[in-house]
Structure formats: C-alpha cells, structure tokens
C-alpha cells in the first residue's frame, strides 16, 4: 500500500503529461470495474498498448478499482438488472442477444452489463477530474512532496530509470 502510494506520488511528481495520467486513471477505472477478458477489458488493453498513457498509474489504480468493484458489485448488478429487465428495452436486448459478441462477453449478465454502463458513463468525468487534480496537485503540493525521501529514493532507483527510458521512447 505504501509502495503504491509512493509510485503514484512519484508519477505525479514526474514529467508525465497530466492528460496521460488522467487517461491512465480513467482506463484503470474501466479495466478495474469490468472483467479483464470482457469486451471493455480487452479494449482497454489495446488502448493501453496503443496510446501514450501512464502505465504506472494505470497498474496502480487498476488494483484499486478492482478492489472497489467488489464493493460496487451490488450497485452495478442492480443497474444491470434495471436495464436488462426493462420491458421497453426487451426488443433491443433480444436483438443484441442474437449476436455472438453479446453472449460471448456475457452482457446478458446483470453485473457485467451494469459494470460496463456504470464505468463508461463515469469514464469522461473521471478523466477530467483526474486531470484537474493532477494540475492542482502539481501547482500546490508537488514541491512539498518532492522533498520526501521516499520519492527521491524512488526516482533514483534503477526501475524508475528503466521506466523513464521506455516511457520516453
């Protein structure tokens, strides 16, 4: 937990672009709340590989959102149930159910669909909130946090150097 916090702080204090960190947070939220081998999970993996997002932030927050998904499961399941059992949308779901991808990614499951809808709706707000928080942090707290020994030692570590090399590529 301590290492996780330190990593996040390290990233916040690094030269990473705020939108890279914010997109990592939003994607981590998507991947954490949805099944990793589901439709959204796989899409996030492709995006992580393809887009320049902060991997450290993504990995750290993916764990956080995965834990959070357990707490949010009843809420997300009830959202899914509300949608799937809605008589007005029965035709829509029936049509979607005919397609293999819908059944393959189990979107007829109340929890899976609820998590997908919940996380997709939150994606944009989370992105902008994360970006705003990064900027706020860097303006107000970064100089103070950089003085922490743990941050300095992390930045001096070989892993960080390697990460910097790869990240900069």
């Amino acid at each position, binding site marked *: 937990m301590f290492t996780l916090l330190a990593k996040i702080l390290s990233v916040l*204090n*690094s*030269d990473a*672009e*705020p939108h890279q960190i914010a997109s990592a947070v939003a994607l981590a939220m998507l991947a954490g709340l949805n099944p990793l081998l589901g439709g959204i999970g796989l899409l996030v993996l*492709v995006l*992580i*590989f*393809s*887009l*320049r997002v902060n991997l450290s932030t993504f990995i750290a927050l993916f764990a956080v959102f995965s834990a959070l998904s357990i707490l949010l*499961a*009843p809420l*997300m*399941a009830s959202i*899914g*149930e509300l949608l*799937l*059992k809605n008589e007005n949308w*029965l035709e829509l*779901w*029936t049509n979607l*159910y*005919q397609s*293999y991808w819908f*059944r*393959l990614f*189990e979107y*007829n*499951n*109340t*929890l*899976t669909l609820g998590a997908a809808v919940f996380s997709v709706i939150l994606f944009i707000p989370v992105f902008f909130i994360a970006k*705003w928080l990064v*900027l706020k942090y*860097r*303006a107000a707290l*970064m*100089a103070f946090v*950089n003085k922490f020994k743990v941050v300095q030692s992390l930045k001096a570590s070989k892993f960080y150097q390697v990460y910097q090399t790869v990240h*900069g*590529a």
Partner: protein
Amino acid sequence: MTDTKNEQAVDKKDQDAVGGNEQTEKEAAKPKGMIRPAGIATLAILVGGVGAGTYFFADSLAHYGITTALAKSIGAEANIEEVKVDWHPLGLKINSLQQTDPASPQTNLFQFESASLKMNLGELLLGKYIISDISVTGLKFGSARNTPGSVFKALEDTETGVQKQETSATADESSGLDIPSVDELLAKADLLTEKKARALEKVWAEEKVAVQQAIDALPDKSRLKKYAQDWRAIKNIKIKSVDDLNLLKQKLKQLKSDVKADKSSLKVAKAQVKASRKELDVAYKELKAAPKQDWQNIKQQLPIDDPNAIAISRVLFGEEIAGYLETAQKYYLKAKPYIDAHKEVKDNSKISAGVEQGAYGENIEFALEKPYPDWLVENLEMSAQVSAQDTYKVGAQNITAQTYILGKPATYQIASVGTKQQEPAFELGGKYSIAQTGMFSTDGEWQLNGHKLSPKSLSKSKNLTVKLEEGAVNGIGSYSYTDELNSKSKLNFVETKFDGSSDSEIADLTLNTLKGVKTFDLDVSVTGKLDSPDTSIRSNLDNRLNKAFKQAVKQRWTQVEDDTKQALASKLQNSLDLNNAELAKLQDMDLNIDNIEVQLKNYGQGKLDKIVKDKQKKYEEEVKAKAKAELKKQENKLKDKLQDKLKDKLKDFKCCEE
C-alpha cells in the same frame, strides 16, 4: 487558460528537477503524440505470434486434443494418422482413426478411413459444439488391430445379461424335438395326484390323533366289566326292608353318575369321528379327482390336442433372433455408461448453475432465433462396413442429446450399399427425441428387398440340426421405444433350401417337411424392457409342420395319453391302497365306539329307574300280601275265638231243647 499556464510551469519545473539535459530539451521541443507506436508494435507482435502459433500448430494441437479426449473418455488408446484444421469455415479433417476397444485391446471399438467436419466458430466460442456437416468413410466396428492397444480403464462388465441369455439358450438346446415319454411327462408335471395323496395322509395323521384322544377318554373293558358287576349286584339286591330299598337307590345313583360321565365322553368321541370322517371324505374325494386334473394340466402344456403349439419357428429362428437382440443389447450396454455420464454432467451443471445464482449478477436469457443445444450434428453422412460383404450408408440430421431445444426430432437413415444390386437390399428410416427430463423415445420403419441369405445353421437342438443352404428374404418392420420396446417384423423367405440331420421321430418329420419348403413367412415381435425383452416368433411353417405332425404322430400321442392316464391311475391307486388301510382303522375305532355305546345303553336311565320301580313294587306287593295274610290270620283267629265263645254260650241252650 490558467490550467495551461500552470501545466507549462509544472513542465518547466519538472525539467529543472530532473536535471534538464539537451535530449530533454529536444523532446520538449518536439511534443510526443497520443499514439504509442512501440506499444502498437508490441501488441501486433503478441497477437501475431499467438495467431501464427495457433495457425501453424493447430493440426498438432487438434491431433493431441482428439487422441487425449478419446483415450480419456473411452479408456483405451486412440490412434490418428493425421488431423488437419481448416479455418474458413472452421473445420477438421481426420485421416485413419483407430479406437482400441477397452474390453478387447486386440480389436478396435471403431475405426474409419477419413472424417471431416465443419463447425460453427461463434457457437464454439460460447462452448457449444455445433457441427454443420460431418462425413465419415470406411467406418468399421470390431476389426482386428495390428498391435494391441493400451487400455487405461476397463469398462464395467455389463455382459451379465448377455451371459444369462446364453445360458438360457444352452438350456433350450438340451430340450430335444421328440414326443416325451410317460416318465418324462410325469417328471416334468407338478402332479396334483401326489399333492392330494400327501394331503390325505396329513389329514389322516391329524384326525387319527384327535379320534384316538377321544377314544382314550371312553371307558375301557375293565370299567365296562365293573359296570356289569355293579349292575348284577344291584339286580341281586333283595328288598326286605326300606333300608334295603334306600341302599339300592344309593347304588343306582352311583352307577348312573359314572355312566353319565362316560356317555358324555362317548358323545364327544362320536362327534370327533363324524368330523374326522367328513375331513377325510373331502381329502379322499379330492385325491380321486386329482388324476383327471393332472391330465388336463399335462395336456395344456403339451402339443397333444393343439399341434400349433409345436412352434418349430422358435426352434429354428429363436437363436438367430436372440443373436440380433444380443448384439443390440451389447451396443446398448456399451452406450449406457456414456448416456449415464451425460446425465451426471447435466445434473452437475444444474448444481453449478444454482451456485452461480447465489453470487452478484444474474444471467438473463432472451429468446434466440436459432437456439442450439450443447452439441449438435446438423448433417451426418457415413459409410460403415459391417462385414466383408455388407456396407451400409448412414445418414442423420440434427443429432443431439437435447432435441427438445431444437423443437424437432433427430432423424436417421440406414441403407445397404449393394455392389451389383439395383436397389438397396435394406433400408431403415427413423427418428428419435430426448425430452428435457431425459426420456428417450424413438420410432422407425425398415424394409428388406430380396436380401440374399448366406448358408446358416439354424437349429442345434438335441435331435435336430437344420441348415438353411440358400434363400432370399423380403420384409418390412416397424419399431418404437418409449420406456419399453415395441417391434414388429414380417419376413418372407423365398427360394429356400434346407438341409440337416435328425435323430428322433419328430425331428425326422420336421427335417423332411422343411426340405420340401420353398417359401415361408416369419412374424417376429419383440416387446418389453430393452434388457429383458419378450420375443414372439410365429411362422406359417408351424402350421405346415403341425399338419404333418398331426397326421403322423396322432397314434403316438394317443398311446402317450393312455399310458400317462394309466400311470396317473396307478399313482392314485397306490395312494388309495395306502390310505385305505389307514381308513380301515377309523372304521374299527367307530365300531369300538358303537360297541361301548351298546354296552352303556344297558345302564341307561330308564333301565335303572325301572329296576328301582320293579323292586319297590315287588316289595310293596310282598308287604301288602303279608299284611293281608296277617289280617286274614287275625280275622280267622278272631273268628275262631268268637265261635268258641258263642259255643260256650250256646251250650246252655242245648239242655232246654231236650
């Protein structure tokens, strides 16, 4: 706007903090885009690598997967020469597959030259095996292997039923085709005569004890002698006084009391004898009627009056049909473990589905335009070689264990492939359904068209061996199975030629008649449970043969009938002789009781009362006579006295007269 300024300031500060070298300055001058080319390349390499690996190693993986799955599910080594995977549409081609029979490692359970199938990829990803087309060529069952295959697990020995049938078939063989002797008839029959004789003996044994007990309670000879003595003593008593009369009355009272008790015992004994006699009469009558009933029973079981009862068709074709049934049972028993395993899997999936529903999230099922079962073969074409001469073409549509999902039954067709024949010698068409409850039902029809028969040994009974040298058969049949089998077949044999050997009167007759038969019909019906069906075989051969039998063996049957009746009568007489001696004892007992009764009658109430009356009367008369005599005597005496007195008085009057 403020955010942008802050961002720039932070960037600048970051660069300063890291130490800001020239490279950093260059990078800052050239801002990085959103796309990460290296990441895309890595992803492409990963996906491409996995894809290429799958593409290039798919054949080996499929080969390994199929051999492992077959070996694991059947429990014996499976050998495949080659497996090829087609990608569009997704399919598989298997060349030369041999599956070892776990019960016999030297032979193959099945083997085929080639098989190809096409699968639905989308359904496969959903865990369903939907095969749109499958074709198998050169399918053979039970062929020998070049080298014995390894067996990993032995299937359960399910051949007990078959063995049982074999045993019964052997038992049938021991019964020959001949007119049975009297001794055989009596030995086989459960004779009522013997039963009734034993019943009479039992009744007599019980009644004898009861009668004897009643007789034992009767007065014996010494007691009767004492009664006689008492009787004589009473008769000899002389009544001289009232005391004598009272003594007589007392003795008579004692005798009456004793006789009364014995008379009561006598009454009981007489009732017992009467009841025993009644019981014995019933048993006796039953015994006398038993031989007649025995003969009726023997007649019913033997073809004496009804020649049709000699079902020669069963003797000739029973074994052949039993063989077919045995084969069908063998395949059914082989398939049964897999059917049961499928049911177990179904049950387990129900349990796991129940567990899943307990967690968050629920699978909502919507109506599918085309629902698929767990596995399905939409179209099957197969050629199977059953023997060196017989090759069959098998077709099937919508084969699955869940026909209820498709809403229509699976259909199947089998037709023989003749080398030179114009039309198939054998055709079968049927359908089957499996309900959601697991209930299996099937029905179908078949027909045979001029199927040439190869020489075949038909009967191996004790006295008769029949061989069908040549012939052809036409036929139609239908079958249905829902819990129980119901099959009816009508066969017409033509251009038949029989040969064989015989060793008894009827067997000779049978063989000679068969040799003259050129055509005959055979009706076979099989009903009941699959593992123990009831078979009925009827043929016009039976009538033909029986007509001949009736003529030829009528005299023999008459002789057998007479002999059997005589033997039964003899058995009856023996039993009656045996029991007559015992019954004579009952007669003796009865006479004994009658004798005692006669004797006791002498001491009857009336006789005893009469003695007292007579003696009392006699005594009274004597007393009366005595009193009269005394009175007379006194009268005479008084008379004399008075006369004397008068004479004395009259003596004075005499002198005057003078």
